[in-house]
């Protein structure tokens, strides 16, 4: 299928894809696909496929396309053509090898960032099409190993990182203890029914970045917020099942998350600096469960920080001195329009702010989102070289003096970290919470 790129690409072997495909026959592929198309291939899929005028205007929206020397196989419509487009055209009569390629394309060459939706004259949602392809892959049992393992973790522990229930609570106790060394009166209120705010995070926070929970606790404490975190599953707002096409499991995760907040009779959910989790609670998981909007307000950290600074609940002792730039994460900018609020927070906390270009809704994706980074090491090189344009963008803003890149999203951090390292950009990454924690009055 993939003529221009194939010759140069190294062959990537992924156990999830290989072993899954080994169990398939062309006949089974056909049966499963036809069943899927009949059950879920609705008006959106049909209209998108039949309306696409093959004009190619979506191409330049995609960082994979630009970074791969404008190889058309990486354009949004090009990727649709090689995956779900062909499947619909042939009514599922495709080979097992085709499914392997389609799996790799849909899982590792599209971040579902929806930038191309803004470039298509019809507003065709390529992310929807790629997710449909991923859903078929899930139904066929052909999913990259690492992200499938994450989906398994979600299903078994209801969090992303195989964190056991005692480890989660222990982490909260530990962070509370650490923070009390700095602020003696601080508390991480666990299972406090009737608190105003239910604070939820993603699996990697207790696993790798526990200091973020510490920082959040310090900010909550200083702002005098009535908040709580649960001692049960439901604390993790992340959702890789949304990205593996396992929508039933996605729904289960969202149900547990929302119902835990409701069980504690909290009024709203404030979530840490994560993008995909916001997407899953704001306009994907909730819908699948039947909630038009989230059943209780979900506030992303950017919006929460904005409120705290606007209402003078936290005060900045001394502004952050090094010049900063800001990476707009797709799921909370194209997904929620939080870009101006983020800039408000930066202006309140940082001395010098330099915009990167393009920015706001038009910012380039980090290339980690959409579950791509979760597909793991086999695809790392492809992900990083597939986003050379991001490195160019960062280099340009670095030339203007920016030293720090603020990215209020975990996936963006992962993606940008790899890009900064690979292209030797020598820039430092921070969350907004890092900046606020560093600059705020803590007592």
């Amino acid at each position, binding site marked *: 299928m993939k003529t221009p790129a194939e010759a140069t690409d190294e062959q990537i072997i992924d156990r999830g894809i290989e*072993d899954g495909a080994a169990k398939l026959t062309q006949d089974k592929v056909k049966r499963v696909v036809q069943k899927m198309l009949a059950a879920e291939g609705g008006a959106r899929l049909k209209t998108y496929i039949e309306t696409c005028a093959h004009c190619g205007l979506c191409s330049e929206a995609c960082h994979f396309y630009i970074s791969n020397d404008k190889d058309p196989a990486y354009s949004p419509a090009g990727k649709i053509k090689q995956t779900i487009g062909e499947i619909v055209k042939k009514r599922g009569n495709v080979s097992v090898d085709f499914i392997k390629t389609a799996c790799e394309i849909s899982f590792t060459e599209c971040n579902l960032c929806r930038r191309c939706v803004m470039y298509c004259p019809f507003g065709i949602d390529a992310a929807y099409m790629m997710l449909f392809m991923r859903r078929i892959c899930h139904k066929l049992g052909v999913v990259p190993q690492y992200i499938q393992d994450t989906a*398994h973790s979600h*299903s*078994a522990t*209801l969090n992303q990182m195989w964190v056991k229930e*005692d480890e989660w609570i222990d982490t909260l106790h530990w962070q509370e203890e650490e923070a009390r060394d700095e602020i003696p009166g601080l508390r991480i209120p666990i299972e406090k029914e009737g608190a105003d705010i239910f604070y939820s995070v993603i699996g990697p926070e207790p696993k790798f970045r526990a200091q973020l929970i510490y920082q959040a606790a310090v900010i909550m404490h200083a702002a005098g917020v009535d908040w709580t975190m649960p001692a049960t599953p439901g604390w993790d707002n992340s959702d890789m099942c949304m990205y593996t096409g396992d929508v*039933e499991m996605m*729904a289960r995760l969202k149900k547990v998350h929302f119902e835990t907040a409701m069980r504690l009779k909290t009024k709203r959910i404030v979530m840490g600096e994560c993008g995909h989790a916001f997407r899953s609670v704001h306009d994907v998981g909730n819908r699948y469960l*039947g909630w*038009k909007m989230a059943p209780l307000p979900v506030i992303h950290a950017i919006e929460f920080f904005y409120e705290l600074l606007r209402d003078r609940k936290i005060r900045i002792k001394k502004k952050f001195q090094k010049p900063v730039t800001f990476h707009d994460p797709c799921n909370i900018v194209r997904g929620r329009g939080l870009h101006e609020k983020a800039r408000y927070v930066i202006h309140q906390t940082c001395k010098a702010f330099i915009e990167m270009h393009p920015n706001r809704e038009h910012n380039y994706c980090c290339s980690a989102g959409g579950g791509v980074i979760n597909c793991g090491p086999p695809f790392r090189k492809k992900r990083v070289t597939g986003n050379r344009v991001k490195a160019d963008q960062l280099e340009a803003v670095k030339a203007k003096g920016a030293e720090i890149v603020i990215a209020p999203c975990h996936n963006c951090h992962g993606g940008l970290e790899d890009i900064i390292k690979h292209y030797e950009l020598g820039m430092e990454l921070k969350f907004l919470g890092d900046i606020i924690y560093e600059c705020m009055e803590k007592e």
Partner: protein
Amino acid sequence: MSHINDWDWNTGKKILADINQWRKQFGWVEEPYASPNGESVAAIVKVDEMSFSVCENGEAWDNSFDKIWFLRYGPDNRAAGLVSDTAMWTVAVSGEPWKNWFEFVWDAKFGIHEGHITTAAQKNMEYFAVTDDQPWENGFYNLSHLAASPSGRSAAAVVQTKPINEGDIAAFQKGCFTVAVNGSPWQHEFLNAWEISFDSEEKHVAAEVRMNLNDYTIVVDGQPWNQRFSSVWQPVFNPADGSVTAPVRVAGGWTMARNGEIIWNSRLLQLWHHIYSMNGSRIAAVASPKFGRWTLAIDDVPWALTFKDLVTDPVFSPDGRHAACAGKTDGKWTVAVDGIAWNEAYDMVWPPIFSPDGKNVAAKTEKNGIYRIIVNGQPIKIDFKTLWNPIFSPKGDKLLIRGVGTVEDEGKYIRIIMSLAETLK
């Protein structure tokens, strides 16, 4: 055992503690908890630089601990908390720790009517449950979804019986999880198991499971239903005949299944949290008949009244003739009884509670930070800063109100018995 009939049901108000005073005394006072009979109130307090205790009605427990969390009252009106001493953990009831200590304890549960306590525990990286200080004989690689039987004497949980190496998706897909009842695992493993239910006689256990990546079903005592579904929610035993029902997803939407067979005609956008009337004759469940609309469906018939945001806490009256729930539209909560919503909306409502004769419904509510008890849509005009769910007297003619007051009772924990006639004036 403390029985509700033995509680002090004489009308009147008692001031049992001054929590503001506790704050002066201890410096560190966490949120208080009241006993079911309302005679006690307790909070975690700091008694020394590095040691914590629980203050009950103004008196600290004799024992203090390095850390205490999850303080709750059991149905027997004794306070229990999860406590730690020199990095080991256990349950302390009325200040007395259990004999067994563990590396961690969490998810403590009480029986509904008796004071038996079950908790999840971990020691030497083995996971198990402990009921009344008696640990399970078997430990597992992991444990979740702990459930206590109605009396609290038995416990069941989802357990991991085989190790899974990082990234070993093949091992996972062979099935590494099952349910253990009082420490004995079911014979077969599944990809996943989740919510567990006991029957009323505590002899049978049912759970939601996933058989492979795409097929879900219900397992009863280790035996899966013959039917497979694209998803299921928590099963419940019929209290009368012991059959098991669960919401299941089939082509066209969600519906109700009994012992694997579909029993409802409706296909809904969502269906969950079903409950039985006490005699097992009726089922009520939270349902979404239309995208973005929520209601209660009773025996396959949804109410005409719907809410936009969500519906929670369905409940039957003891005689099963009436049903109530909490519902939210555009961020404002109210209570609905038999398909009719109360007029007033609140910032939050707690589960509605029927009187024993089913004629009255009371609920704790909150509006602009003020807590009040509402009976049949009418407020009892006493404001509280903290409030617990109201309890009807066995005859249903009186109401027990427990809360921390405002204005003249600012910071004071008060217990009020009101005659219903008075509240409805």
